[in-house]
Every structure is written in structure tokens, then in C-alpha cells.
């Protein structure tokens, strides 16, 4: 009996909930419709230019295809080819190598932000000057630096000559071509991370520093135990976005070293993919590499989010 009551009661509430949901739907039908209309454009964009191409990519990566003719199914051949392709590994290695610039750039920009957070004469001016490379077009910057790295007449070696250093022919030298690109990337991105760090540094409540000073903490201790943990969300954001952007490095490679650099020392993964797809027209193979790139980016991002969560726990 009790069971009977329970079930009827359960179905009754369920029914009532269903009824009220139905009433709700009727009441808000107009609102639902309009909300759907308002969201339609980005949803259509997502379906047509993200989901569909992505699905198509997965299929195309299993085919031999030049982009125009028929696609012939070749199973995992593209992926096997990729694993045995020394150029793929070289391009991947180069792409990872460029990321050395990320910690260097972040350290420099945090130091800059700490300096700019103080009452220094002309700090607005400094902020502007350091930010101008960020807004400048990468194509123009790459052209400019390509010339600056010229072995004989370039600005960089002219400057080094002041100190009696005979600079290398940067972009023509397999050992120096990657560092050259890294230096340029740091120069260009410095202002952006500085601005983010500056906002974070200025948001740290003064009371924390006061309390620490009362305890006799010195400047280094205050920096390490207060500033650094407080700007950690920004560091996390910058590391994630820089790695994603770094994995897509293309413009400066293609402009400064149009053939992939001396002994292929500058070719990045995206540059190689682009080359395979649009110059060699092996679209199927290029698609498989592009998918591997996408998956690698995804894995690295997920790992970072995991690590970030774990660090949060250890702090609290």
C-alpha cells in the first residue's frame, strides 16, 4: 500500500512538473524563439565553419587527395607517413623550441610590470613605447627584423659591433636562426604581458605587503610569497595563450625565411602544413598533420588546466 502511495505521489509530482514545464514553455515560447534567433548567427558559424570542416578533416586525413580530384581512401597511411617523416619531426621540434621564448618573455614582462607599478617619471610614456610593437602588424615587423638581422648591414650586428662583437648572419645561420626569431617574438610580445601583469600587480591589496613588512619580510620574500602567488592567474593565462599562439607560429617564418631557413632550421609545423597543402597540394597528408597539431594543442591545454587546478588546492 505504502508503495502504491509512493508511486502515485511520485508520478503525480512528475506529472505536475511536466505540466508546469509545459506551461512554462508556452509562457516563454516567444522568448525562446527570440533567444534562439539572437544566437543563430554564431551557432550557424560554429556548425558550418568549425564542426563541418573538422569532421571533413578527419575523413580527409585518411585519404590521398590533392584538393581537386577524387579522394582515395588509404586508411592510416598518412599517419604512418607522418611518423616516418623527418621533416614533420623537425618542424615539430622547431615549433617546440620557439617556446623557450615564453618563460623569458614572461619573466621580463613581470619585472617590467613591477617597475611600472611604481611612481616612476614618464611611466605612461614607457607603457606606450613598450606596447607599440604589440599593435604593429606582424608582417611589417617580420620584414623589418629580417633586415635588422642582415649580417652585413643589419641593425643588430651594427649594435653588437659597438661592443666589438662580430655578430653572425642570423637568419642564414642554422644555429642562430631560431634564437633570432625568439628574440623578435619576445620584443613583439613584451608589452602585452606587461600590461596584464601590471593590472594584476596593481590589484594586490597593500595590506598584504604591510602585514608582511610588519613581520620583517624583505623585498624578495614579499615578492615570492605575495606578488608571485597573486599574479598566478595571469601567469597561467599567459602561458596557455602563448603556447596556443606559439603552436601556430607561421607569419614570421614565412616572411623572414621563405624556404624554411638554413638546413630547415626555422620551419614550423604550421608552415610545413601550409607548404604541403597549398604548394605541394598533398591536402590529405597536410590535413592529418593539422589534426595532430590540433590534438597536441588540446592535450597541452588540458594538462595545463589540470596542473592549475592542483596548484590551486595546494595554495588553499
Amino acid at each position, binding site marked *: 500500500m505504502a508503495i502504491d502511495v509512493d508511486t502515485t505521489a511520485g508520478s503525480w509530482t512528475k506529472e505536475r512538473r511536466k505540466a508546469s514545464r509545459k506551461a512554462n514553455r508556452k509562457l516563454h515560447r516567444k522568448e525562446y524563439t527570440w533567444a534562439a534567433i539572437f544566437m543563430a548567427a554564431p551557432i550557424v558559424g560554429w556548425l558550418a565553419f568549425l564542426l563541418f570542416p*573538422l569532421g571533413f578533416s578527419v575523413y580527409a586525413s585518411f585519404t590521398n587527395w590533392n584538393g581537386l580530384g577524387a579522394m582515395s581512401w588509404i586508411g592510416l597511411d598518412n599517419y604512418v607517413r607522418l611518423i616516418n617523416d623527418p621533416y614533420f619531426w623537425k618542424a615539430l621540434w622547431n615549433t617546440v623550441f620557439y617556446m623557450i621564448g615564453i618563460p623569458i618573455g614572461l619573466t621580463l614582462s613581470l619585472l617590467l610590470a613591477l617597475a611600472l607599478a611604481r*611612481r616612476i617619471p614618464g611611466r605612461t610614456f614607457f607603457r606606450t613605447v613598450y606596447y607599440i610593437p604589440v599593435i604593429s602588424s606582424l608582417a*611589417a615587423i617580420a*620584414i*623589418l627584423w629580417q633586415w635588422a638581422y642582415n649580417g652585413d*648591414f643589419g641593425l643588430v650586428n651594427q649594435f653588437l659591433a659597438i661592443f666589438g662583437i662580430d655578430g653572425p648572419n642570423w637568419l642564414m645561420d642554422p644555429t642562430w636562426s631560431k634564437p633570432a626569431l625568439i628574440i623578435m617574438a619576445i620584443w613583439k610580445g613584451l608589452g602585452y604581458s606587461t600590461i596584464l601583469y601590471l*593590472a594584476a600587480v596593481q590589484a594586490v591589496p597593500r595590506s*598584504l605587503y604591510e602585514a608582511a613588512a610588519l613581520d620583517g619580510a624583505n623585498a624578495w620574500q614579499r615578492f615570492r610569497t605575495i606578488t608571485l602567488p597573486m599574479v598566478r592567474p595571469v601567469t597561467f593565462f599567459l602561458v596557455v595563450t602563448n603556447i596556443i599562439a606559439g603552436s601556430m607560429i607561421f607569419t614570421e617564418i614565412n616572411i623572414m625565411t621563405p624556404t624554411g631557413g638554413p638546413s630547415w632550421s626555422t620551419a614550423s609545423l604550421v608552415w610545413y602544413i601550409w607548404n604541403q597543402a597549398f604548394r605541394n597540394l598533398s591536402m590529405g597528408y597536410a590535413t592529418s598533420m593539422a589534426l595532430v597539431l590540433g590534438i597536441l594543442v588540446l592535450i597541452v591545454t588540458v594538462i595545463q588546466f589540470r596542473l592549475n587546478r592542483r596548484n590551486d588546492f595546494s595554495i588553499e
Partner: protein
Amino acid sequence: MSITSNPATTRMATTSARLARTNRTIPKFDRNPFAARSGSQENKAVNWVLFAVLSIGAIFMAAPLLWMVSTSLKTTEAVYALPPEWIPDPFVWNNYVRVFEDTFVLSGIKNSLIVALSVTIVGSVFSSLAAFALAKMRLPGKNFIFIVLLSGMMVPFPTLMIPQFVMFANIGWVDTLLPLIVPVILGNVIMIFFLRQYLHNVPDGLVEAAKIDGASYLRIFWTIILPLIRPAIAAQFILWFMAVWNDYLAPIIYLNSPEKQTLQVVIANMNVQYATQRDYPLIMTASVISVLPILVVFLIFQRQIIESVALTGSKV
């Protein structure tokens, strides 16, 4: 929307709690307890040292760009002067006439403007409509839709470029500006994200009251929501415009005819073509022209741009 209204606030609370817990030692009062307190008591000597360091850094940041401007006004021979000539002698203003007469810079500017303006203006409307619906309207599953849209940010463009290219090639859009406009005009996920965030600070009552008054949703958007989020739209609009203006990878995939290329592709191609002719000043002139519009916009809206960039980091 202040910078403190973010996850940093919660972390701030826990950090200060932790500090309070560990503050068991008796404070030393043998020195000024407010030493680290405010800017007015900062060490002046340290500030001047930092000023000197920042000035040297500023020279490094500005030198390449100043050199670009200087080279754009030189004769072809003066480029190879040793030591480098910083102030051109003579000034060749004719380079700026030549660059418009002899090259595709003018059509490049036109094409870049068409793409950047149409994408950002129409795209901002789509993005703000979607953000309004996602933040303030009823629709079952809208949070799921938001997550799905956000997931698009995880897919790097190089992974999608090959299938997108083939799609547009099949409908004959290659060598037109349409493939650069259509996929991005439907809304920008980053913009939707920030506007939605911004709208959470707007009380629901405003929308409800207007609804009771019988206003249509389009009217609510137009007369209530849009004026409220205008500053946020403006900030994101400028950042987006700069990103589209400076884009290079998508334009080189689609645009073949010189008169159809965007400015970044035009200057990159000039770099190849004129470098062999040793006409370096002309390349630099074109580069200056590609940077100049963005620089002017930046200098005018500097405060808003820097604030919205700083906000990017604090919203994560």
C-alpha cells in the same frame, strides 16, 4: 566592472587568511612599519635607477620602429651606409608618392578596410545579440550552447584552414574577400564571452520591467542593452579590428591576384619582389603605411585598449 571583481578577490581573501594564521611572531617595530606602504614613501633613488633601466629598454623597443620610419625616407643607397644613418640625408618624401603609384598598397588598404570593417561591425552586432540572449534571456540549454561555442576557441585555425579552403574553392570564392569575411562575420566567441560577462552585472529587473511594459526583445536590446554594453563593445571592437587588419595566414591562402590582396599580403609580396631590386626604402614605406592606421587608433584609444587588454587577463 572593476579589476577586483574576479577570481583574484577570492584568492586574496584566502591568502590574507593564511597570512593571519601564520602571523604568530611578534612584529618588529625597530623600523618604520609602513615602509612598504605607499608610493609616496618609495625609495626615490631606486625609482631613478629603474627610470634609467626603463629608458634603455625603451630605446631597444623603439629603435627598430624608428629605423623603419627613417629608412622609408632614405635613398636606396643610404640604406647601406655604414655606420647606419638615423636621420635621412636627403629626405626622400617621394617614396610615399611612389608607393601609392607603383605598388598595390592602395588597393591593399582598400581590401583590408573592407574585410576589417565589415567583419567587425556586423560581427559585433551578431556577437552582442548572442551575448544578450545568453546572459539575459530564457532558453533551455543555453549554457550548453555557450560551452559549445567556447569550445571553438580550442580549435586552432591551421586545423580548419584546409577543409575551409576546399569548401570555398568549391563555391568559387577563392581570390575574393568573401572567405575572409563570411566565417568570422557570424560572431566572435571572445567578444561574446566578455559581453556576456559584462551583462551579468546588469540587473535582470531592467529587462523584466521592459518586458512588462510590452517592449519587444529587439527593442530591449536596442534601447536598454546596447547603450549599457557600448564601452565593452568598443574595447573588444578595437582589439578585433586590429587582429583582422594584421591577419596574414588566411589572406595568403585565398588571395592570388595582387589587386585583390589585403595590405599585409601586399607588403609581404613587396618584400620578396623589391628586395631583389634593392629598393629597400619602398618596402619600409609600405610597412610604415601598414602600421600607421593602427598606431593612430591606438594612440587615440590607448586608455580603453590597455584597460580592455588588462581585463582579458583578469577575467580568466
